[in-house]
């Protein structure tokens, strides 16, 4: 700004006060008051309301909603992370660093992951109640839109194994019409994104061995879950 302009502006302390550039009280010039009459009030509340609704609508259509995740700090099987989308539960994971969990969740779902208590509250309560033996079955929707068709069919089949009973990889393979795919079934269950709620722990090796479990504590956790559910095991034997 040139000295000439600065000088001219100094001659109008009203403008500076009006702009908040100094706090010496001065009466605002007429033009300032007229500008206020035009611009100060801003849009009508009804216009804002309408614009807000339209904005929400537009953004919802354009941008996938985030997934929300939360933590169960203490449970009989250790700390757990879980995540929900608007369609249902997308993830349950045994304890690991938060940043790692969030990154893998975002990579898997292609959504932003935000930690939030409210949206995950229902799932957290049910999971904890289940693990403490206060609940016998889950009433939660699961969102399996981020897994392959094959894995989804395997997981749905595992979901159908009732509490207290067990199945085998081979049986699941036959159920989904891929009798030779027992090994792939094992892999699909091993990377079950929603353990406990989708009871992959109810699926055992052909010989009735527990075979494996990806959760913390591995087979011990699997055995613990089956015990919790009072499963009738055919010749119970944990293979290390």
């Amino acid at each position: 700004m040139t000295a000439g302009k600065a000088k001219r502006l100094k001659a109008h302390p009203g403008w500076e006060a009006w702009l908040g550039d100094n706090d010496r009280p001065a009466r605002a010039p007429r033009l300032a008051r007229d500008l206020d009459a035009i611009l100060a009030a801003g849009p009508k509340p009804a216009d804002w309301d309408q614009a807000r609704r339209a904005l929400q609508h537009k953004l919802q259509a354009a941008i996938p909603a985030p997934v929300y995740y939360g933590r169960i700090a203490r449970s009989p099987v250790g700390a757990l992370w879980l995540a929900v989308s608007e369609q249902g539960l997308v993830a349950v994971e045994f304890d690991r660093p938060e940043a790692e969990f969030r990154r893998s969740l975002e990579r898997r779902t292609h959504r932003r992951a935000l930690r939030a208590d409210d949206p995950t509250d229902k799932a957290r309560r049910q999971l904890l109640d289940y693990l403490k033996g206060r609940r016998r079955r889950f009433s939660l929707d699961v969102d399996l839109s981020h897994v392959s068709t094959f894995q989804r069919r395997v997981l749905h089949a595992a979901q159908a194994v009732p509490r207290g009973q067990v199945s085998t990889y081979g049986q699941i393979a036959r159920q989904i019409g891929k009798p030779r795919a027992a090994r792939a079934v094992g892999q699909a269950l091993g990377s079950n994104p929603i353990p406990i709620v989708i009871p992959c722990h109810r699926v055992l090796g052909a010989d009735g061995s527990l075979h494996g479990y990806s959760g913390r504590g591995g087979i011990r956790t699997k055995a613990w879950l089956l015990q919790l559910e009072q499963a009738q095991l055919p010749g119970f034997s944990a293979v290390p």
Partner: protein
Amino acid sequence: MPPPDSEILVREYARPIHAYLWRLLRDPSAAEECLQETFLRVATAAARGDPVTHPRAWLYAVATNTARSYGREIARRERREQELDPDLEDRSATVPEAAERRVRLRQVESAVGRLPPKQRTALVLRKYQGLSYDEVGAALGCSPASARANVYQALRHMREWLGEEGDS
């Protein structure tokens, strides 16, 4: 700073940004449209993970650009319409003379509209959106001193046009 979460930005800034766009465009549906465009751009940038140091100034910068391209589009449309409609001026001349105050406000409003865009946005950001000159500068891509100069130039222009060289 990590990329801003567009949901939080909507919650915190959609309302002031809407008011800002309304003040620049003086038209509810234009403000509504530009608000959507602004936050779509913001969400895209957030999804890309673009780092942002000053979310508020950045949002105002995006809104300013959106309004500017919208304004250009409108101007094109109006020019076309005027070309197509030679009676337009005659019709506006037949609008009955309003009260003196309304005439004055209309003059002031059209003076605001005549301002160079940078001066108009600087004035609105400073006075009506409550930004500091640092933020105005960041939003307009210039120094704080230049932001301040633009605000005062806007006022000087309008005073000249409205024949208010002296104080009032």
